[in-house]
């Protein structure tokens, strides 16, 4: 993928397919290290299946023999000197507490690092495509010049909307602006006036 945000989209689609009612996407950027965590409460995987998920010739898809989501994320992370791990608890083993957690670490100053890309559009695409499942998104950027925290929880938005579907055009537009405003940070010009 030319952008990590496309990897995020790909992996999160797997969570939704695994029946997750809540998927968390957490990006932690501190100086040159980017940590990505995608955690869901879906049906999880057995230990045997888990062993094969980074092998591209393993897949849960029946239409083709190759699954590239996790192998490509792993490659993208390892190309920067980082790593990727997957943990999972199958619904069969624990009916109450199950799900999958994918964690990837990237060194962003590596010459082979993939840019993060347009995460806001990735989040909006996910909500638009799956208005009945919940997403929690958190992105922290911390370095010499910046200290930004962007957060969004569709469970809270859903409560306020009181029955309006999350994939209504105006709702998606609002979420997009809400996220972009948080990335822009507090409006300095307004403070100067007062």
């Amino acid at each position, binding site marked *: *993928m*030319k952008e990590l945000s496309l990897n995020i989209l790909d992996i999160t689609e797997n969570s939704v397919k695994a029946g997750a009612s809540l998927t968390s996407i957490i990006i932690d950027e501190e100086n040159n290290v980017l940590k990505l965590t995608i955690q869901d409460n879906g049906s999880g995987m057995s230990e045997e299946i888990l062993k094969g998920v980074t092998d*591209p*010739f393993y897949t849960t898809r029946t239409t083709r023999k*190759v699954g*590239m989501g996790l192998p*490509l994320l792993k*490659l993208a992370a390892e190309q920067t000197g980082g790593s990727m791990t997957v943990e999972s608890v199958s619904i069969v083993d624990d009916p109450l507490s199950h799900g999958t957690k994918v964690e990837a670490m990237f060194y962003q100053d590596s010459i082979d690092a993939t840019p993060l890309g347009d995460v806001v559009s990735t989040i909006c695409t996910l909500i638009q495509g799956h208005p009945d499942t919940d997403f929690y998104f958190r992105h922290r950027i911390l370095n010499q010049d910046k200290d930004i925290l962007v957060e969004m929880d569709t469970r809270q938005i859903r409560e306020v909307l009181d029955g309006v579907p999350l994939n209504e055009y105006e709702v998606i537009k609002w979420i997009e602006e809400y996220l972009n405003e948080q990335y822009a940070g507090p409006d300095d010009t307004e403070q100067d006036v007062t």
Partner: protein
Amino acid sequence: MKVSDLLNNGFEEITLPDGDREINGVYIGDLLSWVMGRAQQDNAWITIMSNINVIAVATLADTACVILAENVELPDDIKAQAEIKDVNVLKSSLPIYETAVRLHELLP
């Protein structure tokens, strides 16, 4: 032109489980997700990448063969997977551009 015809023409065999395949064009790229959606069936694919995902992408795009440029080596376990998955892999000592030019001279 068959994949096996490339041997003795500046290309060296790494593994050729399906050497009789016809080549009908060339694709060049190292970003695997990009190649996955763009390489055409029966293309010879020139790359310098040599991990297991290369074999998977060659399977998905159904390329005629993978050509590793600049004498890039394929680890033995990945070579074994290529054999199992019927993926032809060759190598060239030339850089990517010169490898493509050589193919251009050979292809009808």
